C-alpha cells in the first residue's frame, strides 16, 4: 500500500433493505485519497453520497443498510472488518463527520461546551485532566471563532452558522486524520457559507487533515478540493484532479450536464441547459449504463452493457465513449 494514501475504497457496494423495497445505493465504488488532500464528492440528491459517507463511519442504519461487497482501507486498517468496539476508537478520533443540518446536529439539552468536551473525554488517551479538557474546549471555540464564554449556553441560543462552527469544533477537536463533511454549508446563508468554508479549509491545513467534501455545489469544489469524484446512481462516473475535471475537454456526459446546469459568466448563453429527466430510481436501476435514459449520446450498447472505467488524460471516466482512451 502506498504510504501516502490515507483512504482506499475498493469496489464498495451498499444496499438498503426494507419490507417494501431493495435500494442499491452504492454500486462498486473505487476511490483513493492522499494524506492532507481534499476530495470533492459531487452529484445530485439521491446519488449515494451520504450513504458512502455513513459507510465509512460505519453508521449505516442498523437492520436496513448493508455493505454487500468491497473493502475500505483507512490508514492501513480494514474499516469494514473492525469489531464495533474497536470502531468506537476510530469514530471522532481518526475519522469524524460533519452533518448537513447544523440546526439539528447538536443535542438540544446539553450545553455546547459539554458537547465538545464529550468527544475529548471519549478519546482521552493522553489522560488529560478535567481542566486540560476545558482548556482544549476553549481553544477549539477560539479556533472556530466563538468566544469561549459562550460554551455554557445551549444550542438554541446560537444561530445556524454558529451551530455549524460548534459542530466543526466537535469534529476537529481530536485532530482526526479524515474529516467527512456532508454538505456542511447547504443549510447556511451564502455569506456565512463562505466564512465557514474558509475556516474549515484553514483548520484542515493547520491540522494536516484529509477531507471528503460532499456537495452538489461545484463552486465549493473548485475552491476547496484537490480531487473530484462525480457520483451518479451509486457509481463514480468520473474521477480526477480538480484541474482535469474543471478544465479538461473530455468528460462523462453527466459531468458535462452538471456543468451545463450552472450559470457561467464567461460564456454567453440564452438559458441554462438542465439535464433532462430525473435521477435514476435506486430501487429500480436502469440496465447497462445507469445514465443512459438521460444521456444525449445514448447508443444501443449503453442500454445493454455497463461501461468499464476508462482512463482519459490521467483521469477516470466510466463511459463507452472513452473506450481505448479516445472519444469515438
Amino acid at each position, binding site marked *: 500500500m502506498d504510504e501516502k494514501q490515507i483512504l482506499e475504497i475498493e469496489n464498495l457496494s451498499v444496499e438498503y433493505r426494507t419490507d417494501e423495497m431493495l435500494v442499491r445505493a452504492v454500486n462498486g465504488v473505487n476511490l483513493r485519497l492522499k494524506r492532507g488532500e481534499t476530495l470533492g464528492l459531487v452529484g445530485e440528491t439521491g446519488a449515494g453520497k451520504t450513504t458512502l459517507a455513513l459507510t465509512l463511519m460505519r453508521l449505516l442504519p442498523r437492520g436496513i443498510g448493508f455493505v454487500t461487497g468491497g473493502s475500505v482501507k483507512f490508514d492501513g486498517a480494514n474499516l469494514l472488518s473492525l469489531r464495533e468496539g474497536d470502531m468506537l476508537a476510530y469514530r471522532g478520533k481518526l475519522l469524524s463527520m460533519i452533518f448537513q443540518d447544523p440546526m439539528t446536529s447538536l443535542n438540544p439539552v446539553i450545553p455546547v461546551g459539554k458537547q465538545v468536551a464529550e468527544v475529548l473525554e471519549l478519546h482521552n488517551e493522553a489522560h488529560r485532566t478535567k481542566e486540560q479538557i476545558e482548556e482544549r474546549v476553549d481553544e477549539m471555540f477560539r479556533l472556530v471563532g466563538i468566544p469561549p464564554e459562550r460554551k455554557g449556553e445551549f444550542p438554541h441560543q446560537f444561530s445556524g452558522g454558529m451551530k455549524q462552527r460548534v459542530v466543526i469544533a466537535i469534529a476537529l477537536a481530536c485532530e482526526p486524520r479524515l474529516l467527512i463533511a456532508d454538505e456542511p454549508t447547504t443549510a447556511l446563508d451564502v455569506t456565512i457559507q463562505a466564512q465557514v468554508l474558509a475556516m474549515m479549509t484553514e483548520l484542515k491545513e493547520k491540522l494536516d487533515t484529509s477531507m471528503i467534501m460532499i456537495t452538489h455545489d461545484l463552486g465549493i469544489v473548485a475552491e476547496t478540493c484537490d480531487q473530484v469524484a462525480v457520483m451518479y446512481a451509486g457509481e463514480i462516473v468520473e474521477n480526477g484532479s480538480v484541474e482535469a475535471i474543471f478544465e479538461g475537454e473530455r468528460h462523462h456526459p453527466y459531468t458535462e450536464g452538471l456543468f451545463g446546469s450552472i450559470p457561467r459568466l464567461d460564456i454567453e448563453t440564452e438559458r441554462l441547459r438542465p439535464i*433532462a*429527466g430525473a435521477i435514476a430510481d435506486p430501487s429500480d436501476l436502469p440496465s447497462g449504463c445507469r445514465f443512459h*435514459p*438521460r444521456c444525449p449520446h*445514448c447508443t444501443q450498447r449503453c442500454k445493454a452493457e455497463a461501461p468499464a472505467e476508462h482512463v482519459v488524460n490521467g483521469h477516470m471516466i466510466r463511459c463507452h465513449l472513452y473506450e481505448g482512451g479516445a472519444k469515438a
Partner: protein
Amino acid sequence: MQNNAQETERLRQYKKRSQLGSVCRRFAKSRTAMFGLILLIILILIAIFCGFFLDYEGEVIKQNVRERLQFPSWQHPFGTDQFGRDVLCRVIWGTRISLSASLVIIAIATLFGALFGALAAYYGGMVDNVIMRVMDIFYALPFNLLAICIVASLGNGMLNLGAACVVGVIPGFTRVFRSAIMPIRNQEYIEAARACGTRDLRILTRHILPNAMGPIIVQATLNLAITILAIAGLSYIGLGVEAPAPEWGTMLSDGREYMRNYPYLVIFPGLAIMISAMALNLIGDGLRDALDPKLKN
C-alpha cells in the same frame, strides 16, 4: 425521443396513484389493521342481523328460572345467568347496543369537535380564547366524574349516558381538531383562496377541513374504542343502561355477585368489550400509520 416517451409514460403512471389510493394500499398492507377491520365488519354484521336470528323478548330478556346459572354447554355455549337467560344471546345483542351507541356518540362529538376546533383555529384571537378556556373547564374534570355529574342531573338511562359521553369527548376532539387545523390555516393556499375573495365558510369546508381529515378520522376511530369502554364502565357502576337490556357492562356488574362460583358470567361480557375495543384500536392505529407513514416506526 423514445426516452422522452417512456419518461412521460412513467410520470403518467406515477400520477395515477392518488392520495386516497395510496392510503388504502398502505392500510391494506398492514396485517394487524386488516385483522381489526375484519373483526369490526363481523361485529357490525352481528349488530345489524342479530334481530333476524334472535328473539329479543323470548331469548334475550325473558327470565327462565328453571335454567338459571348453568355452566357453558352445547345448549348454552356461554352458560346462563342468574335469571336463566342465555349469556351468548345477551352478549350478541349487547353488540348492537354498544356499537350503535358509541357510533352515534362519536358522530355527534365529531361534529361539535370539528365545529369548535375549526372556529377556534380559523378565527383565533378572542373566539379561540373563549372556546379553549371553556374546554379547559371540561378538561379539568376527569371523564368519569363529569359523566357522573351529568347522569346525576339528568337521571339514569341510555340517552343521558350518551349525552354524558358526548360532553366528555368533545373537549379532546376540539383540541385535536384545532391543532390539526392551525398549521393549515397559515398555509399559502389558504392565503391564496382568501385573496381570491373566497368566503370563510367555503374556505373552511373546501380547503381546510379536507386537509385536516386525517387526524380527525384517526381521533374518531380511537375514541370509538374509548367510548365503548366508557359506556361499559359507567353502566358497570350503575349509571347507564338499565336492566333488563343486555349491556355488557351491566351484565358484568350483575354477574359479580355470582362470580366466585360462576366466573363465566363475568368473563364473556368482558371479552366482548375487549374484542370490540381492540378491533377499533387496531383500525385506528392502522389508519394513523397509513395517513402519515412518517409516524410509522
